[in-house]
Structure formats: C-alpha cells, structure tokens
C-alpha cells in the first residue's frame, strides 16, 4: 500500500524546538527521512536534535524547490548558486545537516563549495579552520614540503 503519492504530511522538530510541516514528497529528498517514512516511523513528529531551526528551514526550502515542477533548469541553477552564498558558520551547519539528512544533491554542492573555499589555502590556515593539531615534527613537515615543493608555488 503506497502512500507516497498522497498528501501525507511529515512533521519535524529542530534542536531549538521549532516545528516544520512538509509534504512527504519534499521530506523524502532526504534519504534519512525517506528511510524513516518507509519504516513507518514518521507518523509522529520526528526530532532532529543535531539540526537547528535556521538550517532546517534552509534545507527544507532546498527540498521544496527541487520537487517543484514549475521551476526551470536555469532558475534552479541560479537558486543553487545563491543558496550557497553563506558565511562560514551557516555553511558548516548546512554541511553537517546535509550529511546527516543525506540530501544528495545538496550535500554535493556544499562539499564542492567548501572545497573551493579551502583549495588555495596554506596548511596553517587549514589547521586553523578545522581545529586540527599538527602532529608532525618541524623536521618531518619540512621534509614533506620539500618533496612537494611544486604544490606550494
């Protein structure tokens, strides 16, 4: 008995207790939510303790746009480009949400955006951005840099 074509509503609650109601067709753009719907666990409000209201609203906006059949290809491209014009904090929140909710198209775009932002940076800057502790000795690091000197031009 398929309910996927019906106007079934899925209820979601963000980490800061905001509730959202969306059509099932929108919600199942997320593989995570789709699995819950298929397993029959989506009848009550689904709590999402690792996604805040602001980010969840953005993700659901993306999902809605991608099931809207009136949107043209060009409009969608422009929407996606504008969508990713975010500050670092929001981009990070979006990355974690898209990964957790497994919204494939969105996750790929966010990954690409993050990669584009960091690709030209120096190793020290990368460590700062991602809170990484350098566990190479200065001699080891220097050796790796020399081996790959061409990448630092």
């Amino acid at each position, binding site marked *: 008995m398929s309910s996927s074509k019906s106007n079934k509503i899925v209820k979601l609650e963000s980490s800061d207790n905001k509730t959202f109601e969306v059509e099932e067709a929108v919600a199942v753009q997320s593989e995570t939510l789709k699995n819950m719907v298929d397993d029959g666990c989506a009848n009550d409000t689904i709590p999402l303790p690792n996604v805040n209201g602001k980010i969840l609203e953005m993700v659901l906006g993306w999902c809605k746009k991608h099931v809207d059949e009136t949107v043209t290809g060009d409009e969608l491209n422009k929407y996606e480009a504008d969508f990713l014009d975010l500050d670092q904090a929001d981009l990070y929140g979006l*990355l974690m949400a898209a990964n957790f909710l497994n919204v494939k198209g969105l996750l790929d775009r966010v990954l*690409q955006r993050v*990669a584009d932002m960091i690709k030209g940076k120096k*190793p020290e800057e990368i460590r700062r951005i*991602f809170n990484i502790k350098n566990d190479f000795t200065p001699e080891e690091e220097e050796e*790796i840099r020399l081996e*790959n000197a061409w990448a630092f031009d």
Partner: protein
Amino acid sequence: MAIPEDVMVQILLWLPVVSLFRFKCVYKSWYALTTHQNFIQNHFCHNLSTSNNNNMSAHFLVHRRDKATGDYLVSSLSYEPLQALSLTQPLPPLYFGIDRKVDDFVVGSCNGLVCHYDSYDLNIVLWNLATKETKVVPKSTLPRSLAFFHANTKGIGFGFDAKTNDYKIIKLLCFHHPNPNLSSFQIEFIDQSEVYSLRTNSWRKVDSPTCIIFDGFKGTRAYTNGLLLGGDYVGGRVFYRLT
C-alpha cells in the same frame, strides 16, 4: 569548525590534486589518507564523473621539441574550448648530457600518466603530469629466445588493464641476424613479446601474435579498455588484447 572524518574525506575528494599535495603536511592522518591507493583511485573516479558535467573530459597532449633549446616539451590542451590547460613543461630531467639528436617518443598516455621512450638508452619512463612523479621502468632481464641475434624494439604500447586495475606496457621485439647480409627482408616478424606490470614492477613474456607488420605510419598509440595499440616500425599497427 570540527568536522567528522567521514565528512572530511568527502571534502578532500572535491579538491584538485595540487591542493591535496599541499595539504599532505597538515597532519599525519591526512598524509596517510591522501597517499593511500584507495583514496587516490576514488579521487580519480570522482574527478572523472564530475568533470564530465563540465564538458572538460577530452584533453590533447601535445609533445614537441623546442627549436632553440632542443628540449622536449609537453602541454595539455582542452578539447572544448581549444586552449592550453597547463603550462608547457619540459620532460623530467632524467637524461643529462645526452646528445640532442636522441629521439624521445610519447608512447601513449592514459588517465594522466604519460609513457615515453627514448631511443638512446632505451629507457621507458612513466610520468604523472598532475603529481610530477616519474618512474623509470626497470629494463627487462627476460632471456631472449634467439640469444645471439640482435633484438630490436619494434613496438611499444601503454595502457590500463581495468580487470586487474594495473597499468601495463607491452614491448614487441624482433630479431636480426648479426650478419647484415642475411637480414634484408621487407617483412619482419615479431619474435618475442613482453608485458610490464606497474603493480608488480616486473616484465613477463607473452605469446607473440602471429602477425605481420606492414607499412603504416610511425608512432605508438595509447590504449582503451584492455586493448593495447602499439607499433613503431616502418609504421605498423599491432593490436593486442590484454589479459
């Protein structure tokens, strides 16, 4: 921002090769990851599948000789639009003090690996254009079937064997009797074939095809999907199925 490792790996897949090499020294975990064969393979496949969308999958490799310096140079051009993608770069400085009259041939290129061969010292070299790494292929020490004859390399081909996930080079040898009066034939046979595997870094003999090489045009070609094309003789072309 602290990002879980599985997400971080996904970000790294979207980075260009030059960034990956620069970030090797960020910390040990990234060094181990980016030098691991599985990651390298995934990164390559990911690159292929995403660049197709941007219509940049076709590249030309241009191999030429600088008139003034005599240096061999390599550039890559994109197919659409036709423009230089990377700066012209000289071949790796592997041969010092070699006569400029030496010929160097690009045997073929596959997945960004270029195979070339010089007619002086009969070296075969593999060159990764993206990472600048080079490897001089060890010379074959396989016994020759006609020991006292002169062996000439009559054809070389290079390609990727998808079945074994390995790069292979095939060399076709034919033999001349040392007495020049006995060797004037229009048609020559390939007497011994050898295949090099990058994975094992060694050569092995393979059965020679029963074929005759006729006139064609000079040059050796790269390869697709298990089929190696080689031929550098008065310009023959020999097709080999690799397995």
